[in-house]
C-alpha cells in the first residue's frame, strides 16, 4: 500500500463495523417499511401504504402528530431552557463559587443512575396514593396541592421534563465546563484589566469561546429529545400516559412494532415505516442545525 493510500487501512475496520451495525439495518428498515409483515410468516408488499397510514389515516396521524409534537416541545425546552441553565451552572462552577465541588457532584450524580431507576424513583415520589410527595403535602396540611401528578394532563408533560432534566442536565454542563477551562486566560485577564464587569466578561469574552461545546450540546440535546423512550415508558406506560401527554415517537414505534404479549400483535412493517420517518426527521434537524450554526458562526 502506498503512503497516500494508508488511510484506507485505518478507515476499513471502522467502516465495516459502521456499515454492519448502522447502514445495513437502516437499509433493512427502509426495505421492510414497504411491507405488511408481522415479523412472522409471509410478507406482503404494500408500497407506500404504511407511510400513508402514518400521515393520512385520521386516527394514526393524530397519534403521530401528538407524539412528534411532544418530541418537539421537549426539544425546544432542552435547547432554550436547559442549555442556558447548563451554561450558567458550568460558569458558576468555573468561577468556583462556594461549594462548587459539591454542586458539580450533585448535578452530575443523577446521570450515573440508569434512566429506568430514575423512572422508578419518579413513581415512588409522584404516585398519587402511595407517593412521598402527596403524603408529605398531606402531612403538612397542604391538601390543596395534592395532585395525581403524572395522571394530571395539564402538568404531566412538564413534570416529565423536570425528571428527565434532573437526570441528564449534568452532561451538557460538564461538556461546557470542559470548554470553559480551555478559554485562554490571557484574554480573560486582559478584559479584567480593561475594566469589564463579570457579566461583560462572560457575555463578550468567554461565551464566544464556548461555541464548539454549545453546538455539540445543542445537537446532542436535540437528538436526545427526539429519541426519548425509557423514562416516559416507565412513568406513563406503553400508551403514552393520560391523554397521550407522555407519548413520544419512540414509544409509538415500540407500541406498534412489538405491541405486547396481551395485544398478540406485532407489525414490523409498519414499525419500520415509523422508524424511517423518525430517522428522516432527526437527519433533517441535524442538517438544519448544521446549516444554521455554520451561518451563525461564520467567520
Amino acid at each position: 500500500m502506498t503512503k497516500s493510500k494508508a488511510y484506507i487501512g485505518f478507515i476499513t475496520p471502522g467502516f465495516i463495523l459502521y456499515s454492519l451495525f448502522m447502514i445495513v439495518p437502516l437499509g433493512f428498515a427502509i426495505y421492510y417499511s414497504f411491507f405488511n409483515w408481522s415479523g412472522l410468516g409471509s410478507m406482503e408488499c404494500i408500497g407506500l401504504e404504511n407511510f400513508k397510514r402514518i400521515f393520512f389515516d385520521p386516527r394514526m396521524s393524530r397519534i403521530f402528530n401528538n407524539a412528534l409534537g411532544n418530541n418537539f416541545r421537549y426539544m425546544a425546552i432542552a435547547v432554550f431552557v436547559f442549555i442556558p441553565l447548563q451554561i450558567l451552572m458550568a460558569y458558576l462552577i468555573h468561577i468556583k463559587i462556594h461549594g462548587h465541588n459539591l454542586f458539580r457532584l450533585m448535578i452530575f450524580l443523577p446521570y450515573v443512575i440508569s434512566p429506568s431507576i430514575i423512572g422508578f424513583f419518579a413513581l415512588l415520589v409522584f404516585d398519587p396514593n402511595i407517593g412521598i410527595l402527596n403524603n408529605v403535602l398531606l402531612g403538612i396540611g397542604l391538601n390543596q396541592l395534592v395532585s395525581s401528578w403524572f395522571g394530571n394532563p395539564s402538568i404531566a408533560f412538564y413534570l416529565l421534563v423536570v425528571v428527565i432534566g434532573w437526570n441528564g442536565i449534568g452532561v451538557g454542563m460538564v461538556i461546557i465546563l470542559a470548554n470553559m477551562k480551555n478559554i485562554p486566560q490571557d484574554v480573560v485577564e486582559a478584559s479584567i484589566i480593561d475594566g469589564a464587569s463579570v457579566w461583560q466578561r462572560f457575555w463578550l469574552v468567554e461565551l464566544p469561546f464556548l461555541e464548539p461545546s454549545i453546538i455539540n450540546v445543542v445537537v446532542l440535546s436535540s437528538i436526545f429529545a427526539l429519541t426519548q423512550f425509557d423514562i416516559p415508558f416507565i412513568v406513563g406506560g406503553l400508551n403514552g400516559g393520560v391523554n397521550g401527554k407522555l407519548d413520544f415517537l419512540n414509544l409509538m414505534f415500540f407500541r406498534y412494532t412489538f405491541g405486547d404479549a396481551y395485544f398478540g400483535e406485532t407489525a414490523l412493517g409498519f414499525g419500520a415505516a415509523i422508524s424511517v420517518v423518525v430517522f428522516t426527521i432527526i437527519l433533517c434537524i441535524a442538517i438544519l442545525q448544521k446549516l444554521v450554526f455554520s451561518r451563525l458562526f461564520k467567520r
Partner: protein
Amino acid sequence: MKKTMVFFIVCLLAVGVLFSAGQKVVQDGEPVVLSIWEHTPQFELPLRNTLERFMELNPAIKVEYEIKTPDNYLSLLTTAIQAGEAPDLFWHHGTATTDMANLTRQGALMDLTDHIDVSKYSQMSRDKVTWEGRVYQTPAATIDTRAAFYNKDLFEKHGWSIPKTFSEFEDLLGKIKAAGYIPLSLAGRDNWNILFLFEPILAAMYPDWIIDAAVGKARIDDPRVISAMNKMIEWAQKGYYGEHFLGVDEAGQYLSFSRGQAAMTVAGSWTTTTLINNNPEMKIGAFQIPTQDGQKPIVLTYAAGFSVYSKTKHSEEALKLANYLTSIESQQIWVDGLGAIAGLAGVNSGSDLANEIADANLELESFYNIMVLYHAEGESPTKVWEEDNPKLFTGMVVPETFVKTLDSMMDYPGL
C-alpha cells in the same frame, strides 16, 4: 533420570485416559436440557413447581425456564423463532389472539394432536389450543376471570356486607367513600385494569348484551355498552377510585388496597396469589359484582399452555413434558401455585379465595374476547380500546364516539 521421565509420562497418560473415560461417563449420564419460556412473572411459581415435579419424575430431563415480561415477550419470541433459536417449549395466547395463526403459518409449532390427550378438557379450553382441527398447544385447566377483592377487616369494622344486587353495590361504594376510604382502587393509567373493571360492570348491568354479542348478534355501539361505560365514568366522577386515580399504575392499585387505603379493588383472578402472598396479615375476600336481579355473573376466559417448537432438538423429551403439562397432576400443581380457579374435573381450585371468586351462577364471555373474535379483517379494535380507554375518564374520548370507532372495526357474523 531417563527412567523417572518415562515413569512420569506414563503416569500422566494413565491419568489422562482415566480422566477422559470419567468425562465420557459423566456426559452419558448428563440429563437432556430443555428450555421453556413464560411471558409473565405472575406464572413463575406455578411453572417452577410444575417443572420440579416433572424433573422428579424424569431425572434424565432437566428443564430450564425463563420468565419474560409481557411488554416484550412476543417480540423476543418472534426474533428467536426467526433466528431458529426458539426454546423447546414456549407459552403463547393460542387462538385468543393472532398468535396461533401466525405461529402455525410460520411452521413454528409442532403438531401435538397425536401426542397429547386433551379429551378431558372442556370445549372452550380445547378451542384455545386447536387450529384448523389440529392441536398445537397444551390446554390449561385454569379459568381466568375478574373479581372484586375486598378487605374483610374493614368490612367487619364498618359493618359493610357483600352486596346482593347492583344497587346495593353502588350504595356500598358510597358508604365506603363516606367512611374516608377509596371504595375501589384503580390503576387509571393502565388500560388493562380499566378493562378488568369495565367487564364486570358490563356483565352486572347488561348480561343480555354479552350473551348476544358472544355469538355475534349484538353491536358494540349498542346503548347498553355506552350506558356501562357511563357508569364507570360516573363512579370516577364521584371519587370512587380515589381523587387522583389517573396517575396510579397497577402496582399503586394493589398497594393502596394492601395498605388499607382502599376497601376494594377489582382485579384478575390470576392476582390472587400475589395479593395473598404480599398481604399475609390481611383477610381478603372476593365476590362478583351482582346484577340488579341478584344473579352473580362471571366473565370467563380460558388460559392456554405451551407449544413445542417444531425445530426442537429434543422432540422426544419435549413431547414428554407437553404430555405431563396436560396431565391432571400437573394442572393441579399449576392451579395450586397460582391460587386459581379450576376449570377441569379432577382439579380443585387453588385456594378458598379462588372458590369465593368462582361463586357465580352466570358465565359470560369477555368484552375483549368479543372484539378479538369478531374484528374485521385487517382491523384491530382491541388496540384502539387499549390506547383510548383511559381517555374516557378525562373526557378526551366520549363513550358514544368511542364505541362507534370500535364498531367500525367489527364484522358481526350474526348480524
